[in-house]
């Protein structure tokens, strides 16, 4: 599943870039994400992603690996995790781009999300919708946090 999102943040690019690497504040914007830890600064992080669709809950202990990093403009990362209780795996390939536009920073990201295993029994449509909601909430939370933080 491929998702493309864009969010305009009224804040300078340096500030947005710094925020992305402030792992605790950044992870707080990802719905259902907790216990963020830095494994290797700037390269590898870990967190637990908890998502829920009605009575179905998944908990993915997730490793986030930063694959590419161009200062102030681009990040390529991969997050992967498995819920052994339910027997499901997920992988997210994330491409984030930052550019300046007037007094705003435009953050656009492309996320390739793969969910494998029993969770897929819920149906592609339901999972896609959930992933879309999570990404929208995330984009909104980043905007609110940065803009509220004058």
């Amino acid at each position, binding site marked *: 599943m491929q998702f493309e999102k864009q969010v305009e943040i009224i804040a300078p690019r340096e500030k947005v870039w710094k925020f992305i690497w402030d792992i605790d504040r950044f992870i707080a914007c990802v719905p259902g994400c907790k216990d963020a830890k830095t494994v290797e600064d700037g390269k590898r992080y870990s967190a637990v992603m908890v998502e829920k*669709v*009605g*009575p*179905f*809950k998944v908990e993915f202990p997730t490793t986030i690996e930063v694959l590419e990093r161009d200062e102030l403009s681009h990040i390529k990362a991969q997050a992967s995790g498995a819920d052994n*209780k*339910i*027997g499901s795996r997920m992988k997210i390939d994330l491409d984030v781009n930052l550019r300046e536009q007037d007094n705003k920073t435009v953050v656009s990201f492309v996320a390739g999300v793969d969910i494998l295993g*029993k*969770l897929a*029994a*819920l*149906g*592609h*449509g*339901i999972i*896609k*919708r959930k992933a879309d909601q999570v990404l929208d909430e995330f984009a909104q939370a980043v905007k609110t946090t940065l803009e509220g933080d004058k």
Partner: protein
Amino acid sequence: MLKRFRLEEPESAAEVSELLGRFGDSAKIYAGGTELLLAMKEGLVHYERLINVKKLKGLSEIAGENGTIKIGALCTHHQLETSPVLQQTLPSLVKLEQNVANVRVRQAGSIGGNLCFAEPHADPGTLLMALGATMVAEKSSGPREIAAADFFVDAYETSLKADELLTAIRVPAPGANSRSAYLKFGYLERPSVGVAMALTLDGPVVNEVKIAVGCAGPAPRRVAEAEALLNAKSKDEAVRLLPQAGAIAGRASEAISDLHGAQDYKEHIVGVLLKRAFNSIVS
């Protein structure tokens, strides 16, 4: 394989509510089990406790009372499809129930369980919405009624509170000129699209038009905009407006592209079924 769980056997709705309040997410109500046990066997969900409500008294009856038909939440689909009260008053619901899943599910599955599990591809919620039904939810402090249109929140999510038990469905008894229909279409085990329509025929004019769509999206939805378009129109005028109403209903279905069909395909089918539903009840 089914993991071990404790079985609670309360004797009243208040007791069920108390157990739900006490054990929270680790407990789940168990009635017919046709959805719940499948999900548990698959390992998609696990509960430490199942609260067996099958022995609760007074929740398995269907009766007409003061202009309302009250359907106990524990009634099986089979009870609904064979109920003389429903055959007389709500033939569209009987027909729907005759076509729910298969005979094994209809024998064991309850209407309450079907509604509370809120599986997106379930049939009854959509028609109940068009029939203007209300859900009776009980907890220790007493009952409350939820309009069917407000009951379904999202896929697998209802507006029931964590400590509430659905005890009955109340459907207003249709008047002599009222008509309703539920049509569905699909090529997999569960339907791709379901459309329900109810209206009153006052001579050549259609009134009290109610339209609901289900299965295509995450949860059944009432389509007030399409209802307003057709309401108080002559039959002929309504027929002319049906394609427009169908397009509105298609969009309102929040159709999701999946194995059951692409979004635009499902939206198109909503329009086709709406037209057929109208023709079947008006002609």
